[in-house]
């Protein structure tokens, strides 16, 4: 637009410059015309050579001027051409005037010539007036053109100013808009980046300050992103590490629950004797809460442990880095004891100890040992009598009286029978405890069983007084006759053994609630309530002192219990210290059809 206006203005300037040039030409023409007019007048008056030459020179310069000048406006050119047309006429008229003058001077017809001269002069003046008129017209035309051009220029200048104003406004608006857009982009960019999207770029291409700012910001964001990416990598790593940790913890938990669920105690003692690890079982073995152990030294927890064999072994393991296995009886600070099978192994942290509680096994072993001791004692007494009696009979046969010989043989025989009973009881117990006890049931008359047991007891304990109490009629039971007799014999034997000679041993049988009730009552020392509870326990015997007291009750009663229960009955004792004891058992008339009970 501005260019158009500029071009317009340029042309306008050109037009004005041309017009001025034309104006100058017009003025020249007018001046020349006036000069011509003056020259004619001067020549006519004086007829001198000088005005004539001046006229011709002036006329020639004007002719060349009009021939040279080209007016772009057609109307003007027409006027100029018109002037040029007059030019020739004026020249010829003036030349005619000059010749007529010369002829006058030469004395020719002066009057006529004068007249012609006057005519020529008149024509010349007319011609020059025409030229003057044309020049004036041309001047007005040029003036008009200048005026019009000047008006155009004003319009153009106003247009230019307006264009400039509009352009400026637009530029201003555009610039403003660009700034606003840039600012908005910047603001949005900061917001987006601020919200955490570091991948965002403002990307402002502008080369202004804002563009620079935006690029700086983008650069900063890039740096930040790079840092953030590395931070994200770090975070990812942290997340991965956490996951790994969780997995590790799960694994650890698995190990812990596995270790805690173990039957064996596991513990790690540090080289400074501090508990580093203790599983549940180990804490239980130590009879301490895990928290009370961890971090503390063994000596703190168990004062005086330094003097124990266990400590010596641990010390050796720490020093020599060698493994040891041992069975150890541990004494707790409160005096309690426990047996443990221990494996002590060196580990980088110190010593790893695996412990297995064998207290029960040990006590079972002890009971078994006692049982074996008891059985061996029970066997030794009759064996002593048999062997000693036979030995005496052999060595001193000739010195013995017949009575003494009978007595020794009878005793040997009875004790041999007693041995048979003991061996029989042992076999029954062995069968019962290994599930091989099979009853041989038949119809049993309890009266007959009682008689058999009492006859045997009478022979063994001749000084006791055995009494049988039976109702007039007693129903038969479906049972194992031999086993029932063994039960009864054991009970009667015990009664006789633990009651004074000459005292009565009462044996009774009766029916009660659909079952047979059989009992043996003595007048011995009686049994305390505490002893009663342990009487039928396996490998248990009455605590009547240690080695050196009367034994022999344990095996018999245990066998009684097994045999009675195999029949589906019960056995129990009612006793009071100082008032004797009553052992009773029941036998169902018909066996309970439960193979478990039958085949105990």
């Amino acid at each position: 637009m501005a260019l158009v206006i500029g071009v317009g203005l340029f042309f306008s300037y050109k037009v004005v410059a041309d017009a001025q040039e034309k104006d100058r030409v017009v003025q020249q023409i007018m001046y020349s015309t006036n000069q011509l007019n003056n020259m004619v007048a001067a020549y006519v008056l004086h007829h001198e050579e000088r005005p004539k030459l001046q006229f011709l020179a002036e006329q020639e310069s004007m002719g060349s001027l009009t021939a040279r000048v080209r007016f772009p406006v057609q109307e003007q050119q027409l006027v100029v051409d018109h002037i040029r047309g007059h030019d020739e006429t004026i020249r010829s008229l003036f030349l005619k005037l000059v010749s007529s003058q010369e002829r006058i001077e030469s004395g020719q017809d002066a009057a006529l010539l004068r007249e012609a001269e006057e005519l020529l002069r008149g024509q010349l003046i007319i011609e020059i007036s025409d030229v003057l008129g044309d020049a004036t017209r041309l001047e007005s035309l040029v003036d008009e053109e200048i005026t019009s051009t000047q008006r155009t220029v004003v319009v153009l200048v106003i247009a230019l100013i307006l264009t400039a104003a509009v352009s400026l406004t637009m530029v201003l608006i555009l610039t403003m808009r660009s700034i606003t857009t840039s600012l908005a982009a910047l603001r949005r960019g900061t917001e987006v980046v601020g919200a955490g999207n570091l991948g965002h770029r403002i990307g402002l291409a502008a080369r202004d300050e804002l563009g620079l700012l935006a690029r700086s910001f983008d650069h900063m964001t890039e740096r930040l992103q790079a840092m953030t990416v590395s931070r994200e990598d770090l975070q990812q790593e942290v997340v991965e590490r956490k996951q790994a940790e969780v997995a590790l913890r799960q694994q650890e938990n698995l190990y812990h629950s596995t270790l805690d669920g173990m039957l064996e105690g596991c513990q790690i003692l540090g080289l400074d004797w501090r508990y580093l690890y203790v599983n549940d079982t180990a804490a239980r073995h130590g009879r301490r809460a895990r928290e009370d152990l961890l971090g503390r030294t063994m000596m703190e927890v168990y004062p005086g442990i330094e003097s124990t064999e266990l400590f010596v072994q641990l010390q050796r393991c720490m020093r020599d880095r060698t493994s040891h296995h041992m069975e150890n009886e541990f004494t707790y600070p409160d005096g309690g004891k426990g047996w443990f099978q221990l494996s002590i192994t060196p580990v980088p942290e110190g010593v790893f100890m695996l412990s297995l509680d064998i207290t029960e096994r040990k006590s079972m072993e002890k009971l078994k040992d006692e049982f074996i001791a008891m059985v061996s004692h029970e066997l030794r007494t009759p064996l002593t009598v048999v062997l000693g009696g036979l030995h005496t009979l052999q060595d001193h046969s000739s010195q013995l009286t017949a009575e003494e010989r009978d007595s020794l043989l009878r005793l040997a025989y009875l004790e041999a029978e007693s041995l048979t009973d003991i061996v029989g009881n042992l076999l029954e117990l062995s069968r019962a405890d290994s599930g091989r006890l099979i009853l041989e049931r038949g119809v049993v008359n309890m009266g007959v069983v009682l008689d058999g047991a009492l006859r045997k007891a009478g022979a063994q304990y001749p000084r006791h007084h055995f009494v049988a109490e039976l109702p007039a009629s007693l129903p038969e039971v479906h049972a194992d006759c031999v086993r029932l007799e063994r039960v009864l014999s054991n009970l009667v034997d015990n009664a006789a053994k633990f009651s004074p000679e000459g005292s009565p041993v009462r044996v009774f049988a009766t029916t009660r609630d659909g079952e047979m009730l059989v009992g043996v009552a003595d007048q011995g020392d009686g049994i305390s309530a505490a002893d009663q509870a342990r009487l039928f326990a396996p490998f248990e015997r009455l605590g009547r002192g240690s080695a050196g007291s009367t034994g022999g009750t344990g095996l018999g009663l245990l066998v009684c219990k097994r045999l009675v229960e195999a029949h589906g009955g019960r056995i129990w004792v009612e006793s009071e210290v100082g008032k004797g004891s009553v052992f009773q058992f029941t036998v169902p008339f018909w066996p309970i059809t439960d193979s478990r009970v039958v085949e105990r």
Partner: protein
Amino acid sequence: MTRPVRVLVADDEPGILVFVKIKLRGSGYEVMTVASGTEALEQARTWAPDVLVLDLIMPGKDGYQTLKELRSFSHMPVIVLSAWGEEARPKSLELGANDFIAKPFDPDDLVASIHRLTPRASTP
């Protein structure tokens, strides 16, 4: 001139008393048998035996108890008989027994032990 060596035998097992009495009498000893610790202590005071053959397992006052009480008033030789086997030997000797014989035993061993513990009987 010298009276026979007196042997007091305490055992609650009648069968043992029978053959021990026959054996010892046959070996020239004067024998008295009792069936309890209480009786043994009583006869130890009154009958003045030269040696006591003592069973450990007896109802009431057992052998250890009897031995302990006996040692409070007498230094007479004591031979302990035990059906508990060798494990009862240390305690018996500790309590003052002079010899220990585990059941079952050869009657000749008992005679030898008595003989050893009563030297004067060897020079009748």
